[in-house]
């Protein structure tokens, strides 16, 4: 989105380094993420794109040996600062994982999980509304409205992933991080998710890590190319795919390595 012709920057990362123990996984990443756009992060396996994604909601905290340096500024606030409340941060920044990971609970409970822990609903009716809206936004409502109280693990893979998206958007996050959300899905389910991503960008800023360059080209407006822990090139998807500046980028998107 442009406001007065100026692109709004939602996330601004400055000199981000990440270490796993002694091994450095990311080197000096400077990347701006535009608001209400889809940004794709591409690159060969092990290039650090998922690591970078996990920096944005501090999921790397879960890994004992992982250290993050540098600044990641979201809404004028450095999330790596000590004063940052991780619970609030993750309420603002949702995440969808590579493999669908619904909780072994009912569909309803899967969605109501986030709103419950953040105290977002005052009554049962309010919660019902949140669940319904989230499922509708995730294009899953029609398929599951009659079996909300059946286990979420009983759904098909594509449905499970949309359930996870519904779970993520139930707390109305500003940003949604997606870590290869379609890699475990078939082409039809993938197309549904991609359609959904396009829809979601109206209300959310989306960052998607993907192995499929075709997918990056289809869903994203901006693209960043990672290689060996460095951000090689970033810019509008059009430019990256049609006219990359860096030779490595060109080699990768034309399939010469990766």
């Amino acid at each position, binding site marked *: 989105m442009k406001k007065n012709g100026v692109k709004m920057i939602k996330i601004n990362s400055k000199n981000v380094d990440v270490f796993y123990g002694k091994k450095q996984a990311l080197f000096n990443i400077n990347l701006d993420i535009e608001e209400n756009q889809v940004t794709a992060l591409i690159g060969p396996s092990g290039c650090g794109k998922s690591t970078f994604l996990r920096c944005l*909601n501090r*999921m790397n905290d*879960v890994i*004992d040996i992982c250290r993050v340096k540098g600044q990641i500024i979201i809404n004028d606030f450095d999330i790596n600062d000590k004063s940052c409340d*991780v*619970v*609030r*941060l*993750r*309420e603002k920044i*949702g*995440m969808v*994982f590579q*493999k669908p*990971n*619904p*909780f*072994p*609970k009912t569909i309803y409970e899967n969605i109501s*999980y*986030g709103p419950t*822990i*953040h105290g977002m609903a005052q009554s049962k009716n309010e919660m019902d509304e949140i669940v319904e809206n989230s499922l509708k936004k995730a294009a899953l409502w029609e398929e599951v409205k009659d079996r909300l109280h059946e286990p979420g*693990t009983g759904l098909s893979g594509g449905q499970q992933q949309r359930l*996870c998206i519904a*779970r*993520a958007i139930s*707390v109305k996050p500003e940003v949604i991080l997606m870590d290869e959300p379609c890699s475990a899905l078939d082409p039809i389910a993938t197309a549904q998710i991609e359609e959904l991503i396009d829809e979601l960008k109206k209300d959310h800023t989306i960052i998607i890590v993907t192995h499929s360059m075709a997918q990056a080209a289809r869903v994203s407006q901006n693209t960043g190319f990672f290689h060996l822990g460095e951000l090689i090139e970033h810019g509008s998807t059009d430019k990256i795919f049609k006219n990359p500046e860096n030779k490595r980028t060109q080699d990768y998107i034309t399939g010469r390595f990766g």
Partner: protein
Amino acid sequence: MNLVIFIFIVLLGFTSYYFGRKKAYSIQATNTRLTALPQFYGYYLAIWCAIPAFIIYSLWAIFEPSIVKLIILSDYSNQGHLDDELNLIYEKTKSLSRGQFSGEITTYLETSAEKYLNLRSIAQNSKVVLILAIIIASIVYGYKRISSNNRTREPVEKFLNAVLFTASLAAILTTIGIVFSLIFQTIDFFKVIPLFDFIFGTHWYPAKAFVRDASEPLDPSMYSDTFGAVPIFAGTFFIALIAMCVAIPIGLMSGIYLAEYASTKVRQYAKPLIEILAGIPTVVYGFFAALTVGPFLKDIGTAMGLEVSAESALAAGGVMGIMIIPFISSLSDDVITSVPQSLRDGSYAMGATKSETIKKVIFPAALPGIVGSILLGVSRAVGETMIVVMASGLAANLTFNPLESTSTITAQIVVILIGDQAFGDPKTQAAFALGMTLFLVTLSLNIFALRVVKKYREKYE
């Protein structure tokens, strides 16, 4: 001599392995492709060498004594002895032949003893000869059959299959045997004591059965009010309950701590340390309960003005609970650790804290496994004997006061079977009835636990 034969067969088996393999190698050396790896030919020959010999050997061991006995006693067959007398004569003959007989030696006996020794040496020699012949024949046969187009892998695999099958069969047959001996004795017991009295009677006093004069005929009416098992059933479940009240919270919380909170280093040391608890013999727990915890509780109770028996259900149950902690903590730790990381990630990514994640996602997901571990703990508690015998006394009081002494099924079995006892006596058979009851209870608990665990497994597969 038997040991020598045995070792000889084993050694020959090993040797023929090498010969079989060697022949296979030599066939291979002529650029012929074998149907199996050379060691299979070795195993094949070793099996041919050892198995027929062992079969003959064991058949001989089974039948030799009875055949010898038949031949010896055939001399006495026309003298009109009773079976018991014949057995006695045979035993006398045997001890005389060993030179250990101290009674009156008759000519009859002397002849028999000589004949016995003679027969034994014939049997021994013919056994050696027969086994040697069998071994040679089967090795030659097996060796001849080793050729490039003879399959050896299948027979060897079949043999292994048979060995493994026999091993599991042995375990199963033992179980069946034990269960049947329990069943028959229990049935005998209930022929004298009505089932109703046993299950609903509130007075357990098996010592009363001692009073009976063995020469008098058995009169069931004198046992009324002797074998009422309610006090000991109640005591069993009461003590198990106390134990679980100690074991479940502590075990579960330490399991959760180890799985979710402890750093790798703490876990590395803490887990084995907790598991050491499981390695302490229960008799050690028993005297810990009887000599340390019991008197300690009594002192505290006296200071608080309470009447505490030195042998109390609380002491036994509490120490039993400590004994069960490692089962619950270790098993629930494993179960919690096996909850997929993706569920934790999903919960953290929603902004849940660690304790919320554990409470709302991990615990429910791991619950069936945790229930399984608790049930295994319960069946340990119900079956535990030593601690109760030592710390809670042997008097079967019907009480629910944890400060008083009470007794359990297992402890009563010990009471009944210590010292002299007569088979066929209701007092002895009462032990079988109690054992049967205990077996049924723990069996159903185990089946239930396995069901729950199985249900859990299906969840992530």
